C-alpha cells in the first residue's frame, strides 16, 4: 500500500507535469496530455476548392493563405503549415478522413455541426491519440449559417481573422489570457487585428515546436501565508513595454516563461479573472484568482539559459479590475495619433492613475465612471509596434494590470493608384501601386494572388508611398487591390485592377464577304475588350464596334478576292485572338425587309423577302442564331427575282426570329434580326398529351369533363356500381332471390 507521503508526492509530480508546460496548449482532459503534431515541420493543410459561397473573386482562399502565412511567419519554430496544391486534394470534402486536413466552408451542414441554432461560426475538430499525438484536424466554417467577408463588410465574419485563430487551435494552442492575442477567446466581426499573430501566440508556437534555443524566466508565486498561487497568469514584457509572453503557474506556484529572446524583461502576475477567465480554458487547469496583480521585478535573459527571479509573494486580492470580455480586444492605438477608448471594469474611480507599460505612450483618462473608464492614448510616430499593458492604480494604491490589451499599429495604408489598372491575367506585367503607409513585410493582394514584400516574386517596397510587383497568373475579373500591413490593417482600392483573360474567337459570321467591302461581320467569342482592333489579312478595319465582351461587329473594308485570310482581334493590352475570313468577288446579297412580318408558328404562309442582288443560289433561313448564323430552318423557295424572293415560312417557335439570306456556294450571308414574328396558335387541350397552351376562353362543361378523365372514371364506376345495386334489387322485387 502506498504511504500518504508517496501519494501526495505522486500527485504533485503528476500535476507539475500537467501544468508546467501548459499555459496556452490544448490538453486532453482525459489524462492532461498536451496535444501536438509529431511532424510539425510539415503539417499539411488543404484549402477546399469550393471556398465560401459569399466570395466569388477567389479572395476567400487568399484570406486563408494569409492566415496560414501568419503562423508560418513565426520564426524559431519547426512548425510549418504546408498548403497542398493538388487539385484532386482540394476537391475533396471528406474532412473526416485522417489523411487530409481541410480548411472548408460547410455550406450545407455536411458536417452536421452547423444545424439551426448551433450558433457556431467555425470549429476545429481534433482527433488524436491519448498520447496527445494529433491524427487529424480540420477547420470548418459555418458557411450555411453565417456570411463571411474578405472586405470588411458589416455583420460578416472576416475570414482571415477567424481562420488565424482556428489555425492556432489546429496547431495545438489553447486560448490565451493576453487580451490582444490572436488566441484571445472573444472575437467580434469588427475586429481584424487577430489576423496577425501576437508575441504571446508566437511564443506559444515556439514553446510547442522549438527550433534553436531560447531563454527562460523562472520563479514561484505564493501568498503571504506561504501557500502557492496556482494558475496565476504570469506575463513578461520587454524593455519597450511590449507584452512578450505569458504562462500559468503550476500546482506549486512555480512558472517558467518560455521562448524568450535575450533581453531585459519585467515580470508580473495577474489573476486570470477578466476578461479571460478559467471558464475559457480546459477544465484541466486549476485557476486561482484570489490575489492581486503583482509586479515581480525584472529579469535579464542572456541566451539558452533560465534566469530565476526567485520566490515572490502575491499582493492581496482587490476588487479593482480593468477590462471585460465584452470589450473589444485588442484596442487599437495608432502610431503618431491620438485615439479614444473605453474599458469596463470595477473600482475605476476618480483619482485613479492609468498608465501604459510603454512610458512613451501617453494615456489620458477623461472619465472615471466606477465601472468604466474613458481615456485617450497618444503615440509618437515611431513608437514600436506590438501589444502593451495598461496599469490602473486606485487612490488606495491597489493595482490592476490589463495584459496586452492595447496594440500599436501603423495607420491604415491607402491605395490611390494602380498602374496599369488592367492587364492580361496570364501575368508578366509590371504593376505599380501608389498610396501611403506602405511598410516592410506588407502584402499586396490582387485577386487570388498574394505578393509579400521582401519575398521572392513578392512586392518590392520602393518607398512608403510606392510598391511594385510583377503580376502572376491571376483569376480573371475585376479585383480590389489590397495592401495589408503585417498587423492586419489594410488599405483597399475597390475594383482597382482588371485581370483580363485571353480573348477567344468562337465564330465569325459570315465567314465570307464581298471583296469591295461593306460586309457586316459579327465576331463571337469571349474576353473582348473595349478598344480592340480588327485586322483581315493584315489590313486594319476601322469600323469596329465592341458590343460586349463576347461580341464584336466589323464592317469590312474589302480586299483581294480569295483566302482564307487571317482575321485577328487585338486587345488594347496586346493579346491577340485569330480566326479566318474570305473575300469573294460576288456581291453580298442585300436584304431590306420581309412581308408579312408575322405568321403562324406552324408555318406554311407565304413570305416575301425584298432586297437586292438576289439569285437562285441563295438559301433562306428562318430563326438562325443572330450572332453566329448557325441553326434555324430552311424556308422552301417559291420564286426568285433580283429584288425579291418568295418563300413558304417554315414552322418556328412563338416569338421573333431572324431571317437570313445565305449564298449556298460562297457562304456570303446577310441577316435581319427580329424581322419576323411567329405567333403561337391557340389550342384547347383535349385528353392527354403535353405542350398545350392555356385556352384564352373559359372552358365549357364538356371541356372540363374531357380534361378530367379521372372524373369520368369515377362517374363510370359509380354508374356501374349503381347498376349492380339495381341488379340486386330487381330480383327481390321480382321474387327471384328465393
Amino acid at each position, binding site marked *: 500500500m502506498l504511504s500518504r507521503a508517496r501519494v501526495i508526492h505522486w500527485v504533485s509530480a503528476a500535476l507539475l507535469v500537467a501544468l508546467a508546460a501548459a499555459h496556452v496548449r490544448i490538453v486532453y482532459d482525459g489524462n492532461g496530455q498536451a496535444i501536438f503534431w509529431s511532424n510539425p515541420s510539415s503539417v499539411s493543410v488543404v484549402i477546399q476548392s469550393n471556398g465560401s459561397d459569399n466570395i466569388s473573386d477567389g479572395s476567400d482562399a487568399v484570406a486563408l493563405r494569409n492566415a496560414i502565412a501568419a503562423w508560418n511567419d513565426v520564426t524559431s519554430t519547426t512548425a510549418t503549415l504546408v498548403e497542398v496544391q493538388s487539385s484532386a486534394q482540394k476537391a475533396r470534402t471528406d474532412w473526416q478522413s485522417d489523411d487530409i486536413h481541410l480548411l472548408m466552408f460547410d455550406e450545407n451542414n455536411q458536417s452536421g455541426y452547423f444545424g439551426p441554432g448551433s450558433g457556431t461560426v467555425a*470549429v476545429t475538430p481534433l482527433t488524436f491519440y491519448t498520447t496527445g499525438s494529433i491524427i487529424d484536424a480540420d477547420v470548418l466554417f459555418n458557411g450555411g449559417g453565417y456570411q463571411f467577408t474578405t472586405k470588411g463588410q458589416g455583420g460578416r465574419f472576416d475570414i482571415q481573422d477567424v481562420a488565424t485563430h482556428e489555425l492556432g487551435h489546429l496547431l495545438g494552442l489553447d486560448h490565451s489570457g493576453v487580451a490582444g492575442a490572436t488566441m484571445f477567446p472573444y472575437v467580434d466581426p469588427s475586429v481584424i487585428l487577430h489576423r496577425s499573430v501576437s508575441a504571446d501566440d508566437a511564443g506559444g508556437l515556439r514553446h510547442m515546436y522549438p527550433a534553436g534555443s531560447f531563454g527562460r524566466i523562472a520563479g514561484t508565486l505564493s501568498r503571504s501565508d506561504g501557500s502557492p498561487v496556482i494558475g496565476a497568469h504570469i506575463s513578461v514584457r520587454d524593455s519597450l513595454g511590449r507584452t512578450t509572453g505569458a504562462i500559468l503557474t503550476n500546482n506549486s506556484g512555480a512558472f517558467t516563461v518560455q521562448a524568450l529572446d535575450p533581453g531585459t524583461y519585467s515580470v508580473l502576475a495577474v489573476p486570470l479573472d477578466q476578461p479571460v477567465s478559467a471558464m*475559457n480554458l480546459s477544465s484541466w487547469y486549476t485557476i486561482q484568482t484570489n490575489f492581486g496583480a503583482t509586479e515581480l521585478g525584472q529579469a535579464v535573459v542572456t541566451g539558452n539559459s533560465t534566469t530565476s527571479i526567485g520566490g515572490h509573494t502575491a499582493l492581496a486580492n482587490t476588487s479593482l479590475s480593468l477590462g471585460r470580455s465584452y470589450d473589444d480586444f485588442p484596442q487599437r492605438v495608432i502610431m503618431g495619433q491620438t485615439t479614444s477608448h473605453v474599458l469596463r471594469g470595477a473600482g475605476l474611480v476618480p483619482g485613479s492613475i492609468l498608465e501604459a507599460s510603454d512610458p512613451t505612450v501617453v494615456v489620458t483618462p477623461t472619465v472615471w465612471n466606477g465601472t468604466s473608464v474613458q481615456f485617450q492614448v497618444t503615440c509618437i510616430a515611431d513608437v514600436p509596434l506590438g501589444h502593451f499593458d495598461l496599469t490602473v492604480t486606485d487612490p488606495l494604491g491597489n493595482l490592476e494590470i490589463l495584459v496586452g490589451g492595447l496594440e500599436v499599429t501603423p495607420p491604415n495604408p491607402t491605395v490611390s493608384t494602380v498602374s496599369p489598372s488592367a492587364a492580361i491575367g496570364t501575368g508578366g506585367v509590371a504593376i505599380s501601386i501608389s498610396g501611403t503607409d506602405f511598410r516592410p513585410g506588407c502584402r499586396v493582394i490582387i485577386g487570388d494572388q498574394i505578393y509579400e514584400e521582401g519575398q521572392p516574386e513578392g512586392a518590392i517596397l520602393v518607398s512608403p508611398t510606392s510598391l511594385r510587383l510583377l503580376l502572376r497568373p491571376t483569376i480573371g475579373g475585376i479585383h480590389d487591390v489590397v495592401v495589408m500591413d503585417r498587423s492586419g490593417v489594410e488599405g483597399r482600392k475597390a475594383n482597382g485592377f482588371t485581370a483580363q483573360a485571353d480573348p477567344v474567337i468562337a465564330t465569325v459570321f459570315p465567314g465570307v464577304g464581298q471583296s469591295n467591302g461593306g460586309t457586316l461581320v459579327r465576331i463571337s467569342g469571349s474576353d473582348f475588350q473595349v478598344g480592340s482592333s480588327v485586322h483581315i489579312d493584315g489590313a486594319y478595319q476601322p469600323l469596329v464596334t465592341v458590343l460586349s465582351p463576347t461580341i464584336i461587329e466589323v464592317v469590312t473594308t474589302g480586299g483581294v478576292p480569295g483566302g482564307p485570310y487571317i482575321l485577328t482581334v487585338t486587345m488594347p493590352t496586346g493579346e491577340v485572338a485569330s480566326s479566318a475570313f474570305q473575300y469573294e468577288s460576288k456581291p453580298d446579297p442585300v436584304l431590306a425587309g420581309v412581308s408579312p412580318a408575322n405568321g403562324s408558328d406552324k408555318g406554311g404562309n407565304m413570305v416575301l423577302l425584298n432586297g437586292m442582288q438576289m439569285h437562285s443560289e441563295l438559301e433562306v433561313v428562318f430563326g438562325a442564331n443572330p450572332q453566329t448564323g448557325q441553326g434555324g430552318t430552311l424556308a422552301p423557295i417559291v420564286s426568285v427575282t433580283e429584288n425579291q424572293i418568295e418563300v413558304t415560312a417554315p414552322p418556328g417557335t412563338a416569338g421573333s426570329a431572324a431571317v437570313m439570306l445565305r449564298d449556298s456556294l460562297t457562304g456570303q450571308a446577310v441577316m435581319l434580326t427580329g424581322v419576323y414574328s411567329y405567333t403561337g396558335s391557340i389550342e384547347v387541350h383535349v385528353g392527354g398529351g403535353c405542350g398545350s397552351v392555356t385556352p384564352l376562353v373559359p372552358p365549357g362543361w364538356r371541356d372540363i369533363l374531357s380534361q378530367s378523365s379521372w372524373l369520368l372514371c369515377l362517374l363510370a364506376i359509380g354508374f356501374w356500381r349503381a347498376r349492380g345495386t339495381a341488379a340486386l334489387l330487381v330480383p327481390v322485387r321480382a321474387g327471384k332471390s328465393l
Partner: protein
Amino acid sequence: MRTPFSPGVHAQRLMRALLFFFAVTLVVAASWPRSDQPSAATVLRMDLEQQADLSDLVLVGTVASARPFQAADGTIRTEYEMLVDRTLWGESRARRTVTLPGGALASGRVTVIPGMPKLSLGEDCLLLLGPETTSGMRIPVGLGQGRLRLGRGFDGRRTLEQDHAGLSFTGIAGLREGEGGSVFDYSEVISRLQARLNVRRGEQR
C-alpha cells in the same frame, strides 16, 4: 473571503482525514478520464432567450449512460441515455437518447469537437439542443452554452453552471451580449426559459 476558525484536536484529525481524502481524490482525478475536452470553436454569444428560440429540445435530466461509437462516416460520437426530469420544449419522455459528436474509443483514438460539451455519467444538467440531424446527432445550442450543469450554491440554492471551455465568443449585430457570468440560479433560468418558450408556443399557434 473565508471565515477563520481554531481547530481542536478532533478537528485536526478531521482535517488530516479530509486532506488525505482530497489527495486520493486528486490521484483518481489525475489518472481517470475526464469529462471535458480541448478547445477551439468560434460561436455566437447567446443569452438564454436566444438559446430558447433556437432549441428543438429543452430538457432537464441525468446522464444514465454514455456509449462512444464510430459512426458510418468514420466520425466518433457518443450516445448518452438521459433520465429526463422535465421537458421544457419538445416531446416529453421519461428516457431519451441524445447523440453528440466526439468521444474516446477504447482503442485510444479520441475525437473532440472543440466547444462541444461532453456529458459525465450521473451528471444532472439542463440541455438546450438543436434539431436532430439526418444522422441522428443533436448539437447543443451555442455548443457549450447549450449545456448547464446543475449544482448547489453556497447558500444551498440550486444553480446552473455554463461551461465555456473551448469556445471563442463572438457577437454580431442584432444579438445581445451574453450573460455576465457562468453560474445562474436554477429557478431563475427555468422561469426565463419557460417564459420565452411560452411566447414561442403562442407564436406557433
